[in-house]
């Protein structure tokens, strides 16, 4: 089977949710932290991705709360989502190890 590399927003969202349920803005701030400030998910990007990931069964709604008259929805990663993230981590690790080996720096940079 042909495994495609996970898109970066997907990876960041699943990684953010791997630590526990979060709401939309929480995912944005966590994703920025995970990427070392390099990636700032925009609201449009986030909700297009969340809708897709829910459709694929990789995340689901954990609970809904009302904060200042607005509904706040928390999302959590599903077992299928955790499996997909674990597979992506293995793929990334394998690629990184191969690159390090070929550079002759398998023991890490000097």
């Amino acid at each position, binding site marked *: 089977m042909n495994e495609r590399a996970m898109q970066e927003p997907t990876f960041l969202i699943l990684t953010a949710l791997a630590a526990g349920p979060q709401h*939309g*803005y929480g995912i944005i701030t966590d994703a920025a932290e995970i990427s070392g400030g390099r990636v700032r998910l*925009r609201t449009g990007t*986030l*909700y*297009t991705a969340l*809708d897709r990931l*829910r459709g694929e069964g990789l995340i689901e709604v954990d609970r809904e709360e009302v904060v200042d008259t607005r*509904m706040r929805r928390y999302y959590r990663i599903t077992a299928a989502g955790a499996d997909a993230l674990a597979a992506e981590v293995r793929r990334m690790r394998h690629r990184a190890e191969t690159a390090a080996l070929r550079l002759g720096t398998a023991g890490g940079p000097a």
Partner: protein
Amino acid sequence: MSERWNRRLLHAYPQRHRAEYGEEMLDVLAECGGGPRESLTLVLGGLRTRLGGLGAPYATPEWRDALAVASLVAPLLMTISTVWFADSTVRALTGELATSPGYWSGFAGWVPVWASGAVITAAAWWGGLHGRRFAMVALLALCAYMFTGHTPLTVSMYGTIALSLVVPVVALAGLAFSDGPRRGAQVLGRRVTVPMVTVAALTFAAQGLAGLQYPLDLHLISGETPYYEYAWVIMLGVLLLNGLRTASGRRFGALLVAPLLDLGHLVAVPSPRTAELALALVLVLALGVRSRPRSRPAT
């Protein structure tokens, strides 16, 4: 940016998406502070969601299999024209086929169209991933060649060429959106493939009786029907009768019934029959998607 502005931008999304996420997105936008980039990604995200929604009924395993069958059958139909072309050329050169004075000049422009069928089929079947890519590029080039009218006897797509474009376009869609002709053969199985190939061979024999015709022009509804077109109908009929019991077979029917409906006339020659044909096309497409499951998981 004001909430009113953001609410307006949310109209880029389909109603379903707004009902599900609208208020939540407004909340997040208020916390993020908005800005032009937020606005831009809202609009782009909305368009992407709308376009994704349009394609969703067709992004199913059944459609992938139907397209895989199309990626096998449509190039095979083109190969029939290659064989016919080779046969006609030999017969014309040996004087067995009577030719008019302008015959060869008219014939020359069609050489790429007829000759490429077998090459495309071979590349798609034996060439692996690279072969399929080559076949797709060749089909694109072929469609562009025919569309721009670089063929004698026609000036543009708005001539009879529109009819001939249907089969290469179906072949291209099949190769682009499926796992290719080998998967198509797997889906069909031997019970269907053997009669289909037999009928294809008979098609060639029938062409000898039919004389010189344009092999990709179907006039099943609009005009005279040469012998080889009857053979095409038999060939597709074998496939459809075998396939209609399965979900992917019905979808394949929707794909290849379209050429039989003389699709080119919908574009090329608007007439009172256009509405009738458009309705028939909608019906076959509806047939293809009617058993689509609602895949949204419960939350």
